[in-house]
């Protein structure tokens, strides 16, 4: 599938996009890429300036799990590993660098016999529990629908195998509710959405329909290669021109219209919706997931009596919240590039590989 990265294909699609925006009023066309991995891909391939030159402004949305998880979760994880012995806190890499009032997981000094272990898959956390029966393994499971079924499956396996030294510190988020919150607040003018390809592989096309039906905003599900992104943008421009608000699937090789039934079934079996507090977006009803009562013994919050009462905490001056809503661009934050840089991040948007501020800082070489 080399076409997805082919120089000729990419420059053709850029040409086509330029032709199309040339015929549209009210430039720039503002497209919100929901998923942090789209932000990362757009940055990695230097697409943002190329699109800007052609009348398209890309807005980063709330689909960066590291960015929207409130500090309270990190602080709980830090407290857990630094005040309890014999804990292995397994976590994904960039969660460890988010700066909080009590430092980051990376700078935390673990208690005797405890450690923070970076894993690539939740399965590794399960293997750690089996390999170290004398230690308590807590998996800091953070993610959207792409990752949630896998995290849940590991808890299910832990229960089936009667592991008593495994638990989940969960920060599980669902994509559609924050999108509703963002468009309802009318804070930001959004002309179209780029929907996350792999979240959609799980949930299918239907969950985005309300954005077209109720809010009249077209959106395209797409993959992460440069050609995928540009093809989707090109299709969205056609819809905008015709004034048609639809959900289109430009990732049909991966996304089935109904999503992944097995994954959805696991989620329904093990998890229940809850109201959740999102960094920058506040409380959103039914926007998070937690383990059902019959899996309580695997819920680290209960097991270790962790009190996570999120409030809008952030380091002084940090405006990640507004960035996550698409309300301001990173360069409008007074800390951006001054006190807040990749070397000394003041907020998660500068930490996460998928964070808007980090992407902006890195690619925007013209500033």
């Amino acid at each position, binding site marked *: 599938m080399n076409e997805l990265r082919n120089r000729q294909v990419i420059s053709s699609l850029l040409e086509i996009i330029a032709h199309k925006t040339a015929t549209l009023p009210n430039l720039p066309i503002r497209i919100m890429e929901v998923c942090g991995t789209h932000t990362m891909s757009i940055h*990695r391939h*230097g697409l943002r300036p190329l699109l800007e030159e052609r009348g398209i402004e890309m807005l980063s949305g709330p689909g960066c799990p590291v960015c929207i998880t409130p500090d309270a979760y990190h602080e709980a994880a830090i407290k857990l590993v630094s005040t309890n012995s014999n804990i292995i806190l397994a976590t994904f890499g960039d969660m460890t*660098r988010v700066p909080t009032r009590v430092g980051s997981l*990376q700078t935390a000094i673990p208690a005797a016999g405890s450690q923070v272990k970076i894993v*690539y898959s939740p399965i590794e956390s399960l293997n750690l529990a089996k390999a170290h029966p004398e230690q308590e393994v807590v998996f800091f499971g953070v993610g959207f629908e792409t990752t949630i079924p896998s995290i849940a499956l590991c808890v299910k396996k832990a229960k089936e195998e009667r592991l008593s030294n495994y638990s989940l510190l969960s920060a599980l988020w669902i994509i559609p509710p924050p999108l509703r919150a963002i468009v309802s607040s009318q804070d930001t003018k959004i002309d179209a959405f780029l929907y996350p390809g792999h979240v959609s592989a799980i949930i299918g096309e239907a969950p985005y329909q309300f954005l077209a039906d109720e809010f009249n905003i077209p959106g395209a599900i797409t993959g992460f290669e440069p050609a995928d992104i540009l093809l989707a943008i090109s299709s969205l421009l056609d819809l905008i021109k015709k004034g048609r608000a639809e959900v289109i699937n430009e990732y049909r090789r991966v996304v089935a219209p109904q999503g992944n039934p097995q994954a959805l079934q696991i989620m329904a079996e093990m998890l229940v919706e809850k109201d959740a507090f999102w960094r920058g977006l506040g409380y959103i009803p039914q926007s998070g997931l937690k383990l059902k009562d019959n899996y309580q013994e695997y819920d680290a919050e209960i097991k270790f009596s962790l009190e996570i009462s999120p409030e809008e905490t952030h380091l002084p001056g940090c405006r990640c919240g507004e960035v996550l809503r698409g309300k301001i661009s990173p360069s409008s934050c007074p800390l951006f590039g001054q006190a807040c840089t*990749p070397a000394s991040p003041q907020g998660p948007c500068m930490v996460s590989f998928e964070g808007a501020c980090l992407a902006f800082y*890195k690619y*925007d070489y013209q500033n």
Partner: protein
Amino acid sequence: MSKISLELGSGGKLMRDFINEEILQNFRNPYLEELADAALLPFNIALTTDSYTVEPLFFPGGDIGTLCVNGTVNDLIVAGAEPRFLALSLIIEEGLEKETLTKIFHSIKNAAQQAHVLITTGDTKVVRQGQADKIFITTSGVGEIIAHPSPPQIKPGDKIIVTGTLGEHSLAVMVAREEFGFEAEIKSDCAPLNFLLPLWQEGVLWMRDVTRGGLASVLIELADRLPYSITIEEETIPLSPPVRGACEFLGIDPLYLACEGRAVIVVKATAQNQVLQKIKAHPQGKTAAIIGEVATSPGKAGELLLKTISGGWRRLEPLTSELLPRIC
């Protein structure tokens, strides 16, 4: 900061601050102020030192023995010195298998032979079980200065060459750690760079070995010292397919991965082809490539810019923390 954190050791801003505030303040002198990997001393002597804490001790393509010789030897070579003599300090954890030590010594012997250096003195300490992780090795190296890298001579149009495929050492260590459940046919690139020494007389202006922090970190450091920008092209960067694949899987940028037998070279524009040919003629340099150049645009002075496969540009930033700990 009242306690030393693991993060300090990973070479980012915390480390730089530490060096400036603690090391320089306490020990300042004109040689130290250069903050170079190898100090250039009177009597034509270059001196360098490094500690090796790689975990695990053995990995595809090498072990702590090959590392502790090649790492030090290469620091001398890229400073413009021919490596001659090494001193080895061993800190051994009580209970280490004698056979492990024998294998390591064997590797050190072979590596030293390959690099034409002699182990002239050393020290051995044994500490209680639990007070060191199997074995730590510190190698100091002395070389004879034969060339003078001259960054001031670097000007726009001068080319950047990398001597081979990137990231293989890092990934070989990861494979050996059996983490992330992945396997690949990747061997560490750990090797001595002696074959580059003659090139100092052929138009090479500057060299650096690509270790912790990877190609990007090395070039960012160089760009920082120049009144120009450095531009490189993604399509020209040599990467073997398994490294490419592993990096995609793990979401790692190969430009930041440590190698232990690769160098970045700045060569005069007029000498680029003959230097490249000479490197490629050597078995260790077969995959060498010209990947970019010193430039006045795009980019501002001190910036490292990458032209992506899509034709767009992005600026490469310094790594803020370790991608993989205890890689060397």
